[in-house]
């Protein structure tokens, strides 16, 4: 039973960077300028690298011939536990940056806590990953300010993106049963404790970006328990295609 909970927890940790990494990968060759194109795909690469560490571990935990590839790519939609935020589409550059920013701030807080996880392997992965995520936070926060405090149009577009994406932010802090159990065991943090720090950091950057927090938001939940938006199936169709068409293929 404990192994199953640990496996589920590793999916909760790994599925966010997987789906966000896939979304960022879609931008390869389509970034608004060379620098940001390279930056977004480098961030994607960092995320997939971190995911490999979680899923190699998950495959060992679940056994039965599972591999990092089968864990990553051979599950059904309802078995993915990523938050709804990361599956939202790349509508325009403002959406890409805003989604990244809302996730990065959370990701950094989470990894900082996981560094002191009682599970040594998770702690080691967090120590490695946090150095990379510090860069991601820098990148997305800088762009929030550049767009928000830029032209009238860039501010208006970012305001629109924030207005749309903010509803998905609070799911990150709503613990599932697995996350509550892991917090009790000292493996993961109590997510609700991270929320006030998150709000403070997001607010600080919003102010510097000449943006305001959206009012009256109806928060959306579901991804972490396997209930996804309509975008998820399309993401998985592309993500899983090669493994489904050529089972057990390797690069």
């Amino acid at each position: 039973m404990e192994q199953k909970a640990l496996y589920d927890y590793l999916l909760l940790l790994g599925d966010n960077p997987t789906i966000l990494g896939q979304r960022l990968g879609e931008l390869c060759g389509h970034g608004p300028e060379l620098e940001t194109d390279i930056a977004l795909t480098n961030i994607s690469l960092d995320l997939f690298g971190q995911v490999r560490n979680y899923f190699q571990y998950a495959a060992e935990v679940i056994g039965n011939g599972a591999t990092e590839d089968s864990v990553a790519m051979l599950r059904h939609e309802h078995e993915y536990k990523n938050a709804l935020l990361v599956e939202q589409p790349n509508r325009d550059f403002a959406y890409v940056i805003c989604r990244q920013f809302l996730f990065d701030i959370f990701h950094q807080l989470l990894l900082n806590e996981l560094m002191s996880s009682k599970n040594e392997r998770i702690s080691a992965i967090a120590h490695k990953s946090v150095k990379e995520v510090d860069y991601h936070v820098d990148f997305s926060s800088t762009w929030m300010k550049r767009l928000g405090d830029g032209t009238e149009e860039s501010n208006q577009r970012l305001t629109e993106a924030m207005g749309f994406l903010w509803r998905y932010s609070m799911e990150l802090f709503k613990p599932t049963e697995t996350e509550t159990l892991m917090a009790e065991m000292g493996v993961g943090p109590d997510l609700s404790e991270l929320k006030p720090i998150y709000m403070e950091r997001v607010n600080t950057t919003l102010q510097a970006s000449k943006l305001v927090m959206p009012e009256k938001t109806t928060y959306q939940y579901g991804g972490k328990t396997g209930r996804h938006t309509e975008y998820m199936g399309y993401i998985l169709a592309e993500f899983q295609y090669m493994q489904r068409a050529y089972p057990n293929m390797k690069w």
Partner: protein
Amino acid sequence: MRVADPEIEDILRSVSDPEIPVLSIMDIGIVRKVDKQGDIFIVSITPTYSGCPAMDTIGDDIKAAFKAAGMTAEIKLILSPAWSTDWITSRGRTALEKYGIAAPLEATADKDALIGKPNMIKCTNCGSMNTKMVSRFGSTACKALFQCEDCHEPFDYFKCLK
């Protein structure tokens, strides 16, 4: 890191980063430990960045180098303690510069350089300090792109990671 057996150290020294061929893996500082179990050498390496695609190749290259010397090696990937640019040796830093990649600065100076403060990084082509950042994300995860304002050469800068 030093390896007790000079023959083993030579084998490991012969393996380089596939993306920076002049740089031995011993000088990048990713070889953390060599143990022996029976006839098999267990080489522990640590990735520079989680997503570094060179790690698999480096693992294969180490095994091939041992095999060429009539020995067997296995690779163990360790994540903790996490790699730091401080582990690049002074020989490694010289090799990087010669290859055209500016070696990492200390953390504070690195941060200044990467938020766009000019004249922080020395041009690897002409030695001028009159340089500017073009992109903080470069050709690989570990590098940023700079350009010299005097000789106009673009060059990579190896980012500080601690």
